[in-house]
């Protein structure tokens, strides 16, 4: 029997087993466990961080989603909520934090700045979206997203978690643990080590 069918409410449990057992799939119970305890990294960048705190406070209370345990250390966090403008000066630290997080890990780009640079995109010290470096799972538009919008984004993340399957998730693949994102270097401008050759050739081609 495939998973989809088992997940349907119509699946009938034999009468003598009713109220005695519940049938689920491994995927489902795994995802349920994961979606209900997504611990965010206690990490705020800019304006959006204040709305993140507000969402954690009494009125919106993200504890209702199992997301209230903000961990100041990346080693204990499941989700990185990039809450604010990512600057070139800060991105090495952010990449390092991401590398230190254990799998499974999720990245949520909260607000316009983290998603695509936001109103400060034109600035010389601004990274136009954290997705230039990290794989982003959910984008939440808004400047800043209200706490309710943030929670709507979190629900979206939970929906994504619901869809994952043990067979395909990246953290059970061979060698997955060793995949690290190279930390950017602060040079005359921000250097992404993955693009070294490209940067060199373009810099050689340009005039003055």
């Amino acid at each position, binding site marked *: 029997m495939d998973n989809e069918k088992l997940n349907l409410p119509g699946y009938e449990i034999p009468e003598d087993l009713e109220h005695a057992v519940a049938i689920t799939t491994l995927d489902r119970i795994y995802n349920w466990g994961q979606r209900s305890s997504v611990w965010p990294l206690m990490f705020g960048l800019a304006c959006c961080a204040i709305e993140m705190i507000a969402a954690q406070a009494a009125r919106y*209370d993200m504890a209702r989603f199992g997301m209230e345990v903000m961990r100041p250390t990346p080693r204990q966090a499941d989700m990185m909520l990039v809450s604010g403008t990512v600057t070139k000066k800060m991105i090495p630290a952010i990449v390092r934090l991401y590398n230190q997080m254990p799998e499974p890990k999720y990245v949520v780009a909260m607000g316009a700045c983290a998603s695509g640079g*936001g109103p*400060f995109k034109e600035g010389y010290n601004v990274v136009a979206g954290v997705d230039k470096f990290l794989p982003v799972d959910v*984008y*939440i*538009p808004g400047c800043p*997203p209200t706490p*309710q*919008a943030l929670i709507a984004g979190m629900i979206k993340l939970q929906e994504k978690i619901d869809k994952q399957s043990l067979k395909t998730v990246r953290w059970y693949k061979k060698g997955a643990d060793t995949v690290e994102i190279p930390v950017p270097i602060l040079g005359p401008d921000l250097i992404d080590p993955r693009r070294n050759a490209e940067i060199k050739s373009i810099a050689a081609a340009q005039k003055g």
Partner: protein
Amino acid sequence: MYGKGILKGLSVTWGRFWATYTEDLAWLVRGKKRYFNQDGVKARAGKDTRGIFTVQYPEEHLTIPEEFRYIPFLVYDETAEEKKEVRCTSCGICAKVCPPQCIWIVRTNDPVTGRPVPVPAEFYIDADICMNCGLCAEYCPFDAIKMDHDFAIASYERNVYNMEKLLKPASYYANIRPLNATREDEARKAKEAAKAAKAEAAS
């Protein structure tokens, strides 16, 4: 006495703790529903709110005030033949006033004369640059671009909105901003009437 201040402080937390239950009881006695109900949400946002303060989003929502602004959208009027009559004349004021310059407009040109036609051919808003400041809506002379109330728009990819995504009917606008819509409608009608009167007087 050492510890008096701590006890005093604890009395505050204690009071706060109990307030939830006394408040629940009070609502029960009055036979009203405190949770999952708009009255309850309103009371929790009022000056006398005590005890539990949480709004159980997504099951219940905070009341969104009329002036609330999120991402802009374009208003179109529905005509009798179910055609969408876009209010925007592509005058470009919103694109000029936009602080982070996240609005792109292509003006339509008449294929025969080459003269501009007051309809936008393309209209884009990069929602990942937009700062929700509302200046575009504030200075639009045609009430064509307005700020939306819909905030639950998180997605799995970047958000660049084109015309298709931006267009929303005037009835939707009147629904989220009733007072503004009525006021603007009246002003527009008065303007048209004055224009008509002027034309009549001239002819």
